[in-house]
């Protein structure tokens, strides 16, 4: 089992779209896949038409007495399940903080699912918090979408430094460009210049596309309503590149 967190300190960079669409592709390729919606906003739950509600809320969840299995919902797609968000996740930090080893908590909760799933995607809310620390401990891969602007690059450097300082050696940070707009000169230039200086950034670029924006209207992953085209191919290529890098 591999745990992949889509993470960025910044909001609105494509974390949820990435988690949902890559999970869809993994499942389509025969891998048993789970998306865990950790964001109280419940965006990924929304995309799968699942109510953002779990019995007992964050307290019961983090206590972990009943395990996660009973909270999981099958999506409309084969091999693809969802652990929905809950509004109470907005105080997840507090709930975690009340426990003994808060940063180990998520990892512990996820361990029993190893038998069942090949990939687990953690869709995280933005910013660095106790929850994100817990996510870092649990994840094998930190997939970080970055919008090609100078500011986003600074946040990437911050994240790298944070991982280094926190001695999170088990984690593989994989950044890639998201919502890249070809018409914008700055986007093009940044992508070009960074290809050389930052070989760790994936070659695949997810373009800014109305197809992708439409997910909110369709309420399903891109692959559920589009079987070909630029956006579709970009996510496929992204998945292939990640697989090549990590397996």
């Amino acid at each position, binding site marked *: 089992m591999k745990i992949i967190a889509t993470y960025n300190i910044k909001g609105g960079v494509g974390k949820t779209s990435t988690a949902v669409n890559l999970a869809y592709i993994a499942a389509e390729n025969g891998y048993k896949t789970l998306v865990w919606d950790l964001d109280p906003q419940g965006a990924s739950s929304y995309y799968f*038409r699942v109510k953002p509600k779990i019995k007992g809320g964050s307290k019961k969840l983090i206590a972990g007495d009943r395990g996660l299995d009973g909270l999981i919902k099958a999506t409309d797609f084969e091999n693809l399940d969802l652990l929905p968000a809950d509004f109470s996740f907005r105080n997840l930090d507090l709930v975690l903080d009340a426990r003994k080893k808060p940063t180990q908590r998520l990892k512990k909760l996820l361990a029993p699912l190893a038998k069942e799933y090949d990939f687990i995607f953690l869709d995280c809310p933005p910013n660095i918090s106790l929850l994100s620390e817990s996510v870092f401990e649990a994840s094998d891969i930190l997939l970080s979408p970055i919008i090609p602007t100078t500011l986003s690059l600074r946040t990437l450097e911050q994240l790298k430094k944070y991982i280094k300082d926190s001695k999170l050696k088990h984690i593989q940070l994989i950044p890639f460009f998201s919502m890249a707009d070809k018409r914008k000169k700055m986007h093009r230039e940044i992508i070009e210049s960074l290809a050389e200086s930052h070989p760790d950034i994936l070659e695949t670029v997810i373009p800014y596309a109305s197809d992708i924006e439409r997910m909110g209207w369709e309420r399903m992953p891109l692959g559920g309503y589009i079987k070909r085209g630029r956006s579709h191919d970009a996510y496929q290529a992204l998945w292939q590149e990640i697989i090549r890098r990590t397996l």
Partner: protein
Amino acid sequence: MTAIPLHFELPENLTATKFLKKLAKKIEVEITSQQYTIKSFYDSFDWRLYGADIVCEFNHSRITSQLNLINRKTGELIAQEKMQDIPAFSKDFPKGRLKTLLEQKLEMRALLPICQLPYEAYCINILNKDRKIVLRLQIDEHEFLTNTINLLPLKGYEKATKSISYLMKNIFCLKPIDSTVINSALKQQKRKAKDYSSKLTIKLKPEMPADEASIVIYRHLLQAMKVNEAGTIADTDSEFLHDFRVAVRRTRSGFSQIKNTLPAEVISQHADFFAWLGQITGLTRDMDVYLLSYKNYQQALPLSLREDIAPLQAFLKQKQQAAQKELAKKLKSPEYIKQLMAWEHYLNQPLPKKSKESNAKMSIKALADQRIWKVYIRLLKEANAISESTPAEALHDLRKTCKKLRYLMEFFQNLYPADEIKSLLKALKGFQTVLGDFQDYEVQELKIKQFSEEMMDNKTPSNTLLAMGVLVQYLDSMRCAARKDFAKQFALFKQAENKAVFKKLFAHKA
């Protein structure tokens, strides 16, 4: 908690379309597809999947083909994979859940199509108010069987499953049925699941005259040969030949161990044929065994040599194929067919009322007691005479005696209380393993040496020969370990509890 029924039968005159109309009046349904589908059931020849409560079905339609493994008892989907063709062997499946499961259950056995069932499949989604699927339904409209409706529950939506199941049972008054139609499909083709097993189950009555019982046993063994013949000739998998050989060996063992029941001249007339069968099948079986052991051979090598051994596999395959070809030719020869038919003809003849054979009219139970006890005592005597310095020959002879005892006990198994004879057979099997290992490692050691000499002539890389050298050393160490283990295994076998059961079952009349 009783399980919620998920599978129902539609009444005879109710088509899928009519039923869907009725259903749509009650709940919101979305028909996603209607496809002519062919369901093919797969299993090994000896029903290993069915025996493990797994049904393997391949659903093939114009738009999709998928292999499913389903729990036969609960209907739960254990593994699935989209694929176009079904490989014969689990090792050739794409990596994943399905492969892992199949490898565990099937081992060396081929996955074969068992029977087919064409049907019209209607796939239906049941949606909630967010238009999220909460349950899937499938209606199968069969040509020859009654139509069925199947609920395919989704994790986390148990409530929906429960209420639709209730609707089917109590509002539409449908009859719940088994999760799989495999048994109905088999019945239609006049077959039954588990209609072949390599285990002997011969039904004998204790008071049956021994000559009559012998005929029953030989018929059984002949049947096993006939059933495995086609697979042996086609080399479908290595177990066909194995089971064929076992039937031959058992027959020969019968000739020598159930003596003086059938006329001596008849036995001697057919004994040569069975000896010949043993001989012509030997080489192919040996090669099969080496090929089956190949993975172990590889594992026994240090990592740096594991790739280098590959030419040995190619060499073995080539030899196996040559031997197999020869064997197939012989099993298709008029001579073989003639002899086999003669034996069958004899077994179908009525027995004479009187016989000059001394054991012919003895009750089979009495004869079985006598024979098993005698061979058991002989086995103990031979084994007791073995010390650490006894030459290998004596252990090989002892192995033969064990086999004789084993076959006798298997022939007559159902004349004795099942749990007691089973426990003795198990103990004997354990003891046989150490003797088998001892001899097999010795033979393999010699053979690998011999192969390396043969391979030396065809420009085999030196590292391959080196790897084979290491392998010989490994086999030698395993042989020594088996030899050392002998005393312990024999002690286990001859322990008082076993002896008491042997005595109780077989010795009271002697």
